């Protein structure tokens, strides 16, 4: 083991132990003083309980180094206090404020498109068009949707009341939660920062954004752009790594929205528990793609490639993690994947401009060690080349790797695609269900019956049939995980709702007050109540006049 690996193993262990020992009061203070506790740990082949193994690496710090932090608990407290005071002035609640901030975000995206694309290139070598599709355009269209729909979203919903509360009328009113914290991830550092902020602003909250320090160019760009374009009395960016995050998590928030790995997700939720803060956790998981043997192979292969390598080179929480197909069909599928890979990325993918790189050397080593595990090398059927100085790994396909390998136990989060074979396609369901619930599950088939069964039997955050990833761009669908892949959902109106409290409002009049409800209690009152509660008007009238239907 290299020194780095050893260090990480120790810290992972240390973390895991700590986690179990201090289950209900996670020791955040200790996390602050030794940042490597969260930052470390990919060699999970040690004695970590299996459910901790699934980690989306999106927010784990890569570099194990000692931080000297300028932003500590005291400053975090001051920040939250200031934002709370500003929130309490009620300004952020107004429609005008919200719309003006949203318009400023749209303007910011329009005007700074180039800078954003450049920052994404610096952090991830993200191809311009990919950056544009996956991040810039996507964020912009979310923002435009919020601007267009905000009035509708904010309108109170009138609901029908029943006889039990007659005469009355009722409404559900959305109100902002208050001061919220958004912690985002490095893999889509712009989208995953701005999209939740759009929801928080649309709902009228004051918001602090903590972008990921692992995408430093985008992080500092966001800090700069937000202070330039948005209202700084209620919208802030705090840059930093683990110590800053810890200082932030120590404060009382009205909501915490976190995108990242399940392990840090647990820390966030435990920290939130102290203040009864509701959380949204957008985590990851091993998203499977099940490929039936009757499909249009070329289109299926292209969509798998788009959802694997075309999606930040596999570093996406909804990217295809592994493929399941039947034994007979695997070689055909792999052949087409190979051909299409060539059309997409050329003969030498390490040189391709159309692929993102691995985010940093920590993750490069993590992926490399996956490939170097025993019994893996001879399973490689495509790719496998690495280039450490460029932080590149060529699109790699493996056939039937051992189930116990870390590639099949952890979220891969990189350009490696294992293909798992099963006897019958239905056996694939069992493979998926034997693992924690993923954020997305994909199925390629024209068989309607199989589609139906898949939709019903496979539990996942979302499902796409005959395609990958695109369901996420549909604003009318909630995006969020279940079980190990997260809790809560957002996008479109769901973002607005995620950052709102739904307040039930009942308007009553004084007309028709009956003594039924009040003591002293008599048998007659009970009888009338009984009829009323079952919405039995006739029975209620009878009982009121002293008749019983039963008698």
């Amino acid at each position, binding site marked *: 083991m290299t020194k780095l690996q050893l260090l990480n193993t120790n810290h992972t262990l240390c973390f895991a132990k700590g*986690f179990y020992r201090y289950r209900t009061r*996670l020791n955040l203070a200790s996390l602050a003083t030794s940042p490597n506790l969260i930052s470390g740990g990919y060699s999970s082949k040690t004695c970590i309980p299996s459910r901790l193994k699934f980690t989306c690496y999106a927010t784990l710090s890569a570099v194990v180094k000692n931080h000297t932090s300028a932003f500590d608990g005291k400053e975090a407290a001051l920040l939250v206090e200031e934002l709370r005071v500003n929130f309490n002035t*009620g300004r952020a609640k107004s429609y005008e404020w919200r719309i003006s901030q949203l318009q400023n975000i749209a303007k910011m995206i329009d005007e700074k498109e180039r800078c954003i694309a450049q920052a994404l290139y610096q952090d991830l070598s993200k191809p311009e*068009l*990919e950056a544009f599709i996956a991040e810039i*355009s*996507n964020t912009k269209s979310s923002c435009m949707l919020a601007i267009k729909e905000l009035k509708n979203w904010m309108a109170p919903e009138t609901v*029908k*009341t*029943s006889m*039990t509360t007659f005469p*009355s009328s*009722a409404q559900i*009113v959305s*109100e902002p*939660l*208050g001061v919220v914290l958004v912690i985002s991830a490095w893999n889509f550092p712009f989208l995953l920062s701005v999209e939740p902020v759009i929801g928080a602003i649309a709902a009228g909250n004051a918001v602090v954004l903590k972008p990921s320090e692992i995408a430093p160019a985008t992080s500092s760009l966001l800090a700069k752009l937000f202070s330039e374009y948005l209202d700084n009395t209620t919208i802030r960016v705090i840059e930093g790594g683990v110590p800053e995050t810890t200082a932030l998590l120590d404060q009382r928030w009205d909501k915490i929205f976190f995108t990242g790995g*399940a392990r840090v*997700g*647990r820390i966030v*939720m435990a920290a*939130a*528990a*102290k203040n*009864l803060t509701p959380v949204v956790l957008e985590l990851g998981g091993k998203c499977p793609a099940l490929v039936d043997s009757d*499909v*249009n192979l070329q*289109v299926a292969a*292209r969509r798998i490639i*788009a959802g694997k390598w075309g999606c930040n080179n596999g570093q996406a929480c909804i990217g295809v993690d592994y493929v399941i197909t039947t034994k007979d069909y695997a070689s055909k599928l792999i052949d087409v994947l190979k051909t299409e890979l060539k059309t*997409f*990325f050329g003969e030498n993918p390490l040189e391709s401009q*159309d692929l993102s790189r691995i985010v940093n050397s920590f993750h490069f080593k993590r992926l490399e060690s996956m490939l170097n595990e025993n019994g893996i090398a001879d399973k490689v059927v495509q790719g496998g080349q690495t280039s450490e100085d460029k932080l590149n790994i060529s699109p790699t396909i493996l056939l039937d790797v051992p189930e116990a390998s870390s590639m099949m136990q952890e979220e891969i989060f990189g350009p490696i695609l294992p293909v798992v074979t099963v006897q019958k396609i239905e056996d694939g369901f069992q493979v998926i269900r034997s693992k924690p619930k993923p954020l997305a599950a994909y199925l390629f088939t*024209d068989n309607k019956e199989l*589609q139906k069964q898949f939709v019903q039997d496979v539990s996942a955050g*979302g499902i796409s*049939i*005959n*395609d990958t990833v*695109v369901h996420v761009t*549909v604003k009318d669908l*909630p*995006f969020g995980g279940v*079980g190990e892949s997260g*809790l809560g*959902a957002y996008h479109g109106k769901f973002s607005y709702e995620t950052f709102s*409290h739904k*307040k*039930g*409002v*009942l308007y009553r009049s*004084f007309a028709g007050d009956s003594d039924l*409800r*009040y*003591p*002293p*209690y008599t048998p007659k009152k009970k009888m009338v*109540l009984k009829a009323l*509660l*079952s919405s039995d008007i006739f029975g209620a009238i009878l009982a009121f006049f002293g008749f019983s239907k039963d008698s």
Partner: protein
Amino acid sequence: MEDMKETVEQSLREMRETFASGRTRSVKWRKTQLRAIIEMVKDNEDKMCDVLFQDLGKHSTEAFRDELGFVIRSATTALDCLDKWVVPRKSNLPLLFYPAKGKVISEPYGTVLVMSSWNFPISLSLDPLIGAISGGNTVLLKSSELSPNASAFLAKTIPSYLDNKAIKVIEGGPDVATILLQQQWDKIFFTGSPKIGRIILAAAAEHLTPVTLELGGKCPTIVDHHSVSKDMKSVVKRISGGKWGSCSGQACISVDYVLVEQSFASPLIEMLKTTVKSFFGDNPKESGCLSKIVSKKHFQRLARLLNDPGVKASIVYGGSMDEDKLFVEPTILLDPPLDSEIMNEEIFGPILPIITLRDIQESIGFIKSKPKPLAIYAFTKDENLKTRILSETSSGSVTFNDVMIQYMCDALPFGGVGESGIGRYHGKYSFECFSHEKAIMEGSLAMDLEARYPPWNSFKLAFIRLAFREAYFKLVLLMLGLIKVRDQ
């Protein structure tokens, strides 16, 4: 306790097996269980009223209104609406995605834990259970040990009415709760105090379990006497009913304190006194219409609150207590010290502080200075004040000109915010509370857009730009080569 651990693990295994069998997902199974709940309540009406009387001294009418009748109503609503709730919701997809279809389906979480509370031990157990069953989950219910008779009744009766491989009851106190929280659940639904709520949330974090917390808080009642002077009789009745008529104030949505202008405080108090007398007679202890305090511990807590010298001096009505009978008389306080314990913790008992203000508009600031309550009640016809309350304060719910009745309105979500809880239920919201909304997109392999895929070029960029703007006409022009790539 080792035995208990084994029992819990065994139950959990069995429930997971049942869930995996897929039985609980069928609408038929859910409906059968819901019908069985109604049948159970109807069959055991007298028995249920008995246990509620034993545990809390609840009058059977009160028991029927707040618990049995409520549960029957809730189960009937679920039964009537279930077919509608389970239908997948269609989503609109952009034209570009044609011929794909989008929908959202509700799927059960799996095996869920419901921890209920002692103040409404039947309804706060069965109502969440109705939601969990509607959602198609297997459920373990932990009833509260502080209402032992109701708890024993549920543990004995539920298995004989409901599918006992899918729905289980475990009795016990904090030690059992601890064992339960060590297990992995797919959802936890808890009714109780913020203190325990924090423990639940922290325990749930370990397994990333979603949690609904139904907590409480100090629910204020604003009396704007200027605008409701004509209806003062109803106002006072409703306040008294909401304070003393429902489990003696031991309810999370009961009136905690009243805010009123100084000038109107004494007339209000006089009217409250008269109403208390008309409700409970001259000797409320013997009226049979007032619930008792649930336990010695809670009785002593209330005694401690009242025995604070500043608080004691503020008593304007009642104040007598009988520890043997766990009885606390309906008590009214006028302006107890604002820093006293009684004004800073949820009272959860038959003591009503009246806080006077110079101007009723100050009530907004007063409420905002405290943690967010589960409910705010306001008696007012002043539209301006109504708007201010709605837009400036935050609470689980707001009810104008009445108290507590929002609980009965199943079209409204019931749940807190901030200190008063997380999540919501009742009616359709109960179903949603116990369901995961799974987003589905059904595409076809028949049509494919080249512009989605690398290698990237400026034509593709132009195409995608237009696609995101949903500018389909320009898109067609672009594809026909009628506009230049750079024009975008």
